[in-house]
Structures are given as structure tokens and as C-alpha cells.
């Protein structure tokens, strides 16, 4: 999987390394910005209210 990505990146080793780093940063950004905030309410740390009220994350 990673070998496939590496082979399909253009340029010499340095360009590829830089592009890989960018890709990694982009993935981490998407995870922190969108995926983790979405996944977090599925875990129990947000249940701080007693039931029957707007509900902090079930």
C-alpha cells in the first residue's frame, strides 16, 4: 500500500519525500478536524448530564 503510493509519486527521492510528508500532514489534519470529533461522542467520556435533557453525547 505504502510502496504503491511511493512508486506513484512523481519526481526524485527528495520530491517524493516532501510529497509524502504533505500527504501525512493532510491525513492528520482531516483526522483531527473531522474524523475524531465525529468519533468522539461514540465514546463514553462525554456523558455528563442526567437523562432527559438535550444530552451530551450518548
Amino acid at each position, binding site marked *: 500500500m505504502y510502496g504503491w503510493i511511493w512508486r506513484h509519486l512523481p519526481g526524485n527521492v527528495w520530491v517524493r519525500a516532501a510529497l509524502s510528508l504533505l500527504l501525512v500532514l493532510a491525513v492528520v489534519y482531516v483526522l483531527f478536524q473531522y474524523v475524531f470529533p465525529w468519533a468522539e461522542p461514540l465514546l463514553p467520556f462525554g456523558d*455528563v448530564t442526567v437523562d432527559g435533557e438535550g444530552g451530551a453525547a450518548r
Partner: protein
Amino acid sequence: MSPRALLRTFSELCITIGTLIVLFVVHLLFWTGIRAQSATDREIDRLEAGWAAEPLEPPAPSRGGGPPPAAPVEYEPGQPFAVMYIPRFGEAWDWPVLQGTGTDTLKKGLGHYASTAVLGAKGNFAVAGHRRTHGDPFKDFPKLRPGDEVVLTDGTTWFTYRIASKPYRTVPSDVGVIEPMPRPLKDEAAAFDEPGRYLTLTTCEPEWGSSHRLVVWAYLDATQSVTDGKPPGLHS
């Protein structure tokens, strides 16, 4: 696909999943705290800027040290309207209180149960907060003891509530705890036996779980106008 390629792909998948889990833990433990720090600072700044811009009419000084007459107040959902201080949690502990207890609201501060009384009014002013993640506002919740102060200000008045009960551990369905006259499932846990001006704080129990809730109750002990300075319970 050769067995070698299969094995390599499988290994890469395992490493990827492991990395994802580590990143998620980093997100929960550190990133939500950093975000909460800036979000709460922003909410408090907004509040204080609003109070500075249009000082509300300070309530007429009440006779006999009683609470000021309750004016009809309405809070806007998701907006901050007060700042809470709990000296037991440290001098630097200050958190904005926002209207509502939705997930997004609780990321920016403490949440006021929308169905409960307003600050300082007769009934029960109930507030929920995270025990862990998002800045850990109620991390030290079990350390609260009867007599501890919970101080709030809405820009015009300082409200000093005094805690009346040790943290009470209950189940999530125990909604009686936030009623105007708190009625927990266990009768002997009830802190009050007549209507009054109360405050309820709720958070989760155990620390990282959701099977139970921790609750404390407090009663309104004193109020004073912000023009008279900070209440004695707050340092500096």
C-alpha cells in the same frame, strides 16, 4: 497476490490502525484540552467584553442581605452568560457557563440545563461539565465537600453558593437531581427538605466511564453587586 505481498499489506494495515489509535488518544488527551482552553478563554473574553460594553442595571440593594428580586432572564442557547469559580479546584479555575447541554456547547465550557432555573432564582440552577477531555473542568469533582463555595457572576451580581452535600453517585436516569427541589432516587441522599435557591452540578462517574453520574448540591448563601468587589471566598 503473492503470500509475501499479502503479508506486507497486512502488516501495513496493522501499523496504520495502531497509528490511528495513538493519534486518537493524543486527540482526546491533549488536543481537546488545548481546544477547550482557547474556546473557554474566548467565551470569557466575549462575556467580559459584553459586560463592559453595556453594563446591566445593577439590582437594587436588597434588604437584610437576601437575594435580589428575580428579574425575568432568558439565556440564548449555546451562548455564555456567566463565569463560574470554584476555589476548591484552584485559584485559576474559571469556566464560562453556556446555555444548554449539547455536545458542542460542552466543548466550550460548562452547560446550563435549559429547563432549570436561572442564576440566583428560586428553584434549581443545574450545570453539567466534562470530568475528562475538553479541558477536564470537573476532574477534581470528588474532592468537593460540604461548605465549599461555588461562585458565579453574570456581570452584575456575584452569587456565592455553598455546597451542602458530599458528591452523590447515582445512575444516569436519576433526573430528579435537577428538579427545582432536588429529589434523588435515594431519599436519604436528598440535601434539602424545603424549596429554595439551589445549584446542582453534574458530571460523569467513573472518571473515564458513563455508567454513573456524580452530583453535588449547593444553596445560595450570599449575593453582592459587582460594584462591591469580589466576594470574600475568591482570592485577589
